[in-house]
């Protein structure tokens, strides 16, 4: 059997208690919410923490609250099922509900949390393997080894960010709130993700994500998420595309964000796609130009399932589909 390595378990009942436990035990301690990613990785000995600080009992971080002035506030422990099913998320941020509903399986969405999903460990064919497999290859730089097996000359790890909600939250301009023993801070989610597969988050070891806040949708804002994977269940994305567009009364696009995921160690915002869209109505031509820009920006490496040329070609296809979905979406009633 694949057993978990030994650890001490400390349940926290508040964010303050959680971070004080993390500070007390130091870098040998890890926080865990749903555990659906961490426990599987621990079984493969990718993590062997001496102490786990369980966040599940923190009842006041499970909220989903919407306010027309301040927008959507998601407690870090809101489950992916709750987010996928939330009427306000489905109404005002449909791409987020779509992304949450496409994660993994019903059982794991019932357990997995939004805070955990944005802290999902980066993934790679050479990393997400059991200990014997990795040992036979003499490991990789992300865990126990020296070089990157995907790009041996690379100075940094190229494991991919495989969160479905991350590109959507970035396209919506979300901000991440963190608590540590010395206080709280917040930062744009684009700054929470770092461009290194080994050090992919701005979270310090004694910090936890407490909530994620998304501004209210401006005017006629529409959104969509498209996910590429080999099977329509279980699988992590091998490409994710989030599209958020804002139209004026005449149907002209006044703001746009297109964000790719699973092609890099952090979500990739395609600003050239936004430039192709803003200022004109969403038409096959402008959507095509934006999809071409996404194709140029999406540079998959050989570290997930499916071939690089296929995944590269699919960036254009899925960017186009996400934008078409957004263009077709029913406008919000006032």
């Amino acid at each position: 059997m694949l057993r978990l390595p030994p650890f001490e378990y400390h349940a926290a009942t508040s964010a303050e208690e959680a971070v004080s436990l993390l500070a007390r035990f130091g870098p040998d301690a890890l926080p865990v919410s749903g555990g659906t990613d961490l426990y599987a990785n621990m079984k493969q000995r990718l993590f062997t923490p001496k102490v786990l600080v369980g966040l599940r009992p923190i009842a006041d971080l499970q909220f989903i609250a919407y306010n027309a002035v301040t927008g959507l506030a998601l407690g870090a422990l809101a489950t992916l099922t709750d987010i996928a099913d939330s009427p306000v998320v489905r109404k005002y941020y449909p791409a987020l509900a779509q992304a949450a509903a496409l994660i993994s399986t019903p059982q794991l969405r019932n357990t997995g949390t939004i805070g955990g999903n944005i802290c999902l460990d980066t993934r790679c064919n050479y990393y997400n393997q059991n200990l014997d497999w990795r040992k036979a290859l003499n490991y990789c730089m992300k865990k126990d080894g020296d070089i990157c097996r995907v790009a041996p000359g690379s100075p940094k790890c190229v494991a991919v960010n495989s969160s479905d909600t991350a590109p959507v939250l970035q396209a919506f301009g979300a901000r991440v709130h963190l608590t540590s023993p010395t206080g709280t801070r917040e930062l744009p989610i684009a700054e929470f993700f770092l461009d290194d597969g080994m050090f992919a988050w701005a979270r310090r070891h004694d910090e936890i994500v407490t909530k994620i806040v998304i501004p209210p949708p401006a005017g006629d804002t529409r959104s969509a998420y498209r996910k590429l994977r080999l099977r329509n269940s279980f699988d992590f994305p091998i490409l994710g595309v989030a599209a958020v567009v804002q139209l004026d009364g005449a149907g002209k696009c006044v703001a746009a964000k297109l964000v790719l995921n699973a092609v890099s160690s952090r979500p990739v915002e395609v600003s050239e796609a936004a430039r192709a869209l803003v200022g004109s109505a969403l038409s096959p031509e402008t959507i095509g130009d934006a999809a071409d820009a996404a194709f140029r920006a999406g540079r998959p490496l050989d570290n997930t399932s499916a071939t690089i040329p296929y995944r590269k070609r699919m960036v254009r296809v899925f960017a186009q589909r996400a934008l078409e979905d957004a263009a077709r979406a029913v406008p919000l009633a006032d």
Partner: protein
Amino acid sequence: MSIAPAKILASLSINGSVVECAFNPNKTLLEVLREDVGLTGTKHGCEMGHCGACTVIVDDLPVLSCLTLAVESIGHEIRTIEGVARDGVLHPVQRALAESGGAQCGYCTPGIIMSAVALLEQNPAPTREDVAQGLSGNLCRCTGYTKIIEAVENASAELRSAR
């Protein structure tokens, strides 16, 4: 020499009964159910969240017992395959699976039944798509799923007509 973390003495609520057991903090709910409580109906498949064989119902939601710690299950209502039949009478989902040939080797069946029971409790009249979605976290390598989906639809009709 390092000292292993102490065992946790706990009461778990399993199938409506309180069960006293002692386990190490790194034991999953799956391991405690099978090894410490003796309920071996819940199957261990991939143990990585890739198959659904170990599905149990915790507080009315299907979850994977291989990726849940037993210590995290204290204070929650756990239901396993052993608690689905009542007084020797099979649950309509179990009967429908048997009658429609929805089980072949049978290894995935306990997990499928737990997902199906939880689905029908939340959504008594699911569409075929709802059933497929509800079972989308359970792999079956024998049946091709058609008979399983038909069985859940048949059980849904029986449960509704019995009301």
